[in-house]
């Protein structure tokens, strides 16, 4: 295989089905990290509002991430306030709710530090308004809180070209239980998205009833939309752990060969 061939091959995304053709021996065995704290633990941020909305969806998400990726995910979700030790030890958290979000000053300070040193926060608007939108109170309150935390760093629409739409699955839009807005917003710290704000009740797509069935039927897309919601959530988790890794893959040729360590022969 020469280089050109390789690049063609590597630039073409292989599908899971394609990987399956390679046989089970080609895939890594599932493993657990060296200790429980090394696993990815999906954490719910406890706040002054209804922080536990769609609480049962958290475990479902963890299970899906474990089933679909090699990430070692703890199936034992956690809920903690930003000031608590458990929160400080885990870099991935979800802030969900359907009403006003309230944080204390200490919590704001702790959350700001947590985000600044590497934490990733998914904010999910779980509300359902009469106008077919998410909770406006939730939306306004999280925006106000984020503005207090980072007054000079506003939330911005995340471009459809951003790596969160292709860090595992290739996606065109951020699905959820609903599709109130065809985009998510993000808050960028350094070169990474530290906060992603979903308007589409992402966790609602995973919420289960006591019998194990899904509690809501995604609208308007139904089950295919639920699958897209899972995929988007998996991408977000993957992004939290791999950041812009997939951007590197797109530029693989450039990265591998940008240093002229082989003199090109004339005529080649």
């Amino acid at each position, binding site marked *: 295989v020469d280089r050109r061939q390789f690049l063609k091959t590597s630039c073409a*995304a292989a599908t899971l089905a394609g990987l399956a053709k390679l046989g089970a021996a080609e895939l890594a065995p599932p493993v657990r990290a060296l*200790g*429980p704290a090394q696993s990815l633990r999906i954490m719910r941020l406890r706040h002054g509002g209804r922080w536990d909305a769609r609480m049962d969806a958290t475990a479902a998400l963890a299970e899906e991430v474990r089933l679909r990726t090699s990430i070692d995910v703890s199936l034992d979700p956690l809920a903690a306030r930003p000031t608590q030790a458990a929160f400080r030890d885990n870099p991935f958290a979800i802030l969900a709710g359907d009403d006003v979000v309230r944080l204390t000053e200490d919590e704001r300070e702790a959350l700001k530090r947590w985000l600044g040193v590497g934490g990733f926060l998914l904010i999910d608007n779980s509300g359902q308004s009469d106008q077919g939108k998410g909770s406006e109170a939730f939306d306004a309150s999280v925006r106000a809180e984020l503005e207090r935390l980072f007054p000079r760093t506003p939330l911005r629409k995340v471009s459809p070209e951003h790596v969160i739409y292709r860090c595992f699955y290739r996606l065109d839009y951020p699905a959820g239980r609903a599709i109130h807005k065809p985009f998510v917003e993000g808050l960028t710290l350094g070169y990474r998205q530290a906060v992603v704000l979903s308007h589409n009740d992402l966790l609602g797509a995973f919420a289960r009833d006591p019998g194990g069935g899904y509690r809501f039927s995604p609208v308007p897309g139904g089950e295919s939309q639920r699958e897209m919601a899972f995929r988007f959530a998996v991408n977000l988790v993957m992004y939290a752990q791999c950041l812009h890794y997939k951007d590197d893959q797109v530029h693989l040729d450039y990265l591998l060969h940008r240093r002229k360590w082989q003199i090109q022969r004339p005529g080649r």
Partner: protein
Amino acid sequence: MSFLFGDSGPYTERHLVLLGEWPPWLQAVVIALALTVLALSVYNYRELRPMRRRVGLITLRALIVLALVGVFYQPAFLEQNVATSKNHVAVLLDVSESMGLDHGERTRLALARGFLRDNADLLERLAETNTLSFFSFGGEVREHGDAAALSALKATEPRSWLVAALEDLRARYRNRDLGGVLVLTDGIDTSEAGRRAGLDRRGERLLAALDAPILSFTTAGGAALKDVAIEDVTYNNFAFLMNATSLDAMVRVHGYPYGSVAVRLTENGREVARQRIDLRPSQDAYPVTFEFVPRTLGKQVYGVAADHLADEIYAHNNSRQVIINVIRDKIRVLQIVGQPSWDERFLRNLLKQDPNVDLISFFILVNTQNFRPVGEGETALIPFPAKELFEDELGGFDLAIFQNFNYGPFRTREYLPRVAQFVRDGGAFLMIGGPLSFSAGRYYGTPITEILPVALEPSFAKPWETAQGAADPTIDTSDFKPRLSAAGERHPITRLALDPAINAAAWGQLEPLEGVNRAKRTKSDALTLVEHPSLRDASGAPAPVVAVRDVGKGRSMAVMTDSTWHWAFKAANKGADPRHYDTFWKNALRWLVKDPELDLVRVRVVRESVPLGETATVRVEVYRPDYRPAAKEAVELIVRRRGPGDGPGEGTEVLRDTERVTDAAGHVTLEVPVPQAGVYEVEARARVVPQRVAKGADLFVGTDLNPEFERIVGDTRLLDALAQASGGEVFPMDVVNPALTLRQPRVSKVESRRHRELWNVPFVLVLLAGLMALEWWTRRRFGYL
């Protein structure tokens, strides 16, 4: 005038002067009187016929009046007896080393001697009319008694500075009359003026002050000379590792109008590039540019050499050597990760943001349990490019990281020997712990085991069972507070602070880690830098958490945990200093890629270029593996002079000192004499590492400051410029009795002076009387008396 005053001799100068210094009014009266007389005469003779009589009488009267007015002014000759002194002529002979080269069948100096001999008559004649002085020049001007003394000189001067010699002459002949300068040279001026092949303003001012023609007799311009020379090499004295760079050379070819010349670039004696020059009759300078990729860190010797052609008059200028310090532009890191994790994320984040690091990551994102049927193109997954990475590209990296990566499922076992060889050849390898690393990653018995700093036990745990929570005896999942080993207290990797006490305190305050991969033991030639506080390895020593090892020319490092990210994230969240995480990993990177600042034996030559005859000062610093200064340590010092084809460790040994011992600071200083030109390698060896000798080396160039042989074919352009600006001329060296245009002496001496009056000499009085008598007789004849 001899009929008036007799012969006055050849050195007598005469000037007409007027002695009658009358007041102006008297002169006006006399001139008015004379004019009145003339006017009256014209009036009186107005009736005289024929006309010629009238004109003749008036003319006679005018002559008489003029003579009387002349007598009134008392004309006289000022006679001076002068003696003209000789001016000086300097003969300058070039005795630089290039004059010893052949020009045809004889040396250039022999041709100059022949000029002095063949033109002995000319010199003799010059000596009669001029004061001849004889000088030699090279780097400085020396006076000699006569031409014979000049002829006895040899071509030994390491420089030929013609313009500087003329400046010297100007100083010697200040306020003296210099009639000319005869220069016998091959036309090579090694000063800036020679390189410029012309005069600058300073040179023009010099010639104006010298005010004497420069007459050159030269062998320059001889078409019969044959030579190929590397005249100049232009290069950056540093280049980046694995980055193409270039070096320019100017090849000067004389006497070979056709054919071709191969020019080679060598790196430590090994040819790395070659170019062929097609020769043309109208060209003698050929620029050559080499593009090459430095592949070895540190100072490297690059040589540019041209073919030796038949009948070259000088062969030693066909090659030149230069030293280029090869440095890293960026550390190229290959990070292969078996599963996304926080440990991977924080390390990647650190490396990605480091401007000195070029990072390429490959993550394994799915495992055997992960199966969801999706359509083609719905994921962004790509196959792991094992062959491309390990067969084709591995050599381009400085560091390969296996972070919680299990080679097994990716058919990469066949490439593991390549990874091991990559390290032995000088690469760096880092294995970071996790459930897919070390023994748990089934590395026991693979070639990777050979390069790791730790010995592994086999693991018999089944991955499926451990995934369900079954214990793997090669893994411990408990929290622990890592502690520095004795070696770690001073090792640069674990140096979070310069002060050892502060460093120890910093380690004491680090966040606890969670889980380690168990190793059988640390290998005997490896160092444990960080150890587990309670776990023991098979030898009973504290279980290693961080260990390092030199492997062949490369280095390896084992970090037996996947939780160092705690030092960044958890520490920062608790308000502790998260920079310790960055410092630890950046230190590790520097050590792994052999940052020269972290070598155990460091050799520094104070000056990279040392002129012949002087000494090179070499400073050696020796450290123990834990980076304590190696005090009172025996150091062996070897100095070699490398030949054109020699690489590191090769060449002629010119000095070996086995009895040097470091001082309390671990330092040794050495003075190396430089008797010959060339590239010198200074190597220091110390047994500070068990079972092997730690070495360090540095290079310097013993420079022959004599550039006489850079260009050995003379250039007449400077001589032409000197001749043109001074009114001189350029002759071939074999000319006999040339016509020399020297400047005439300008200084005279008046020995006596006197006035010879004209009005009272008998001839003048007789002439005046004769005119008066003629006029009287004529007037009477024409009837006016």
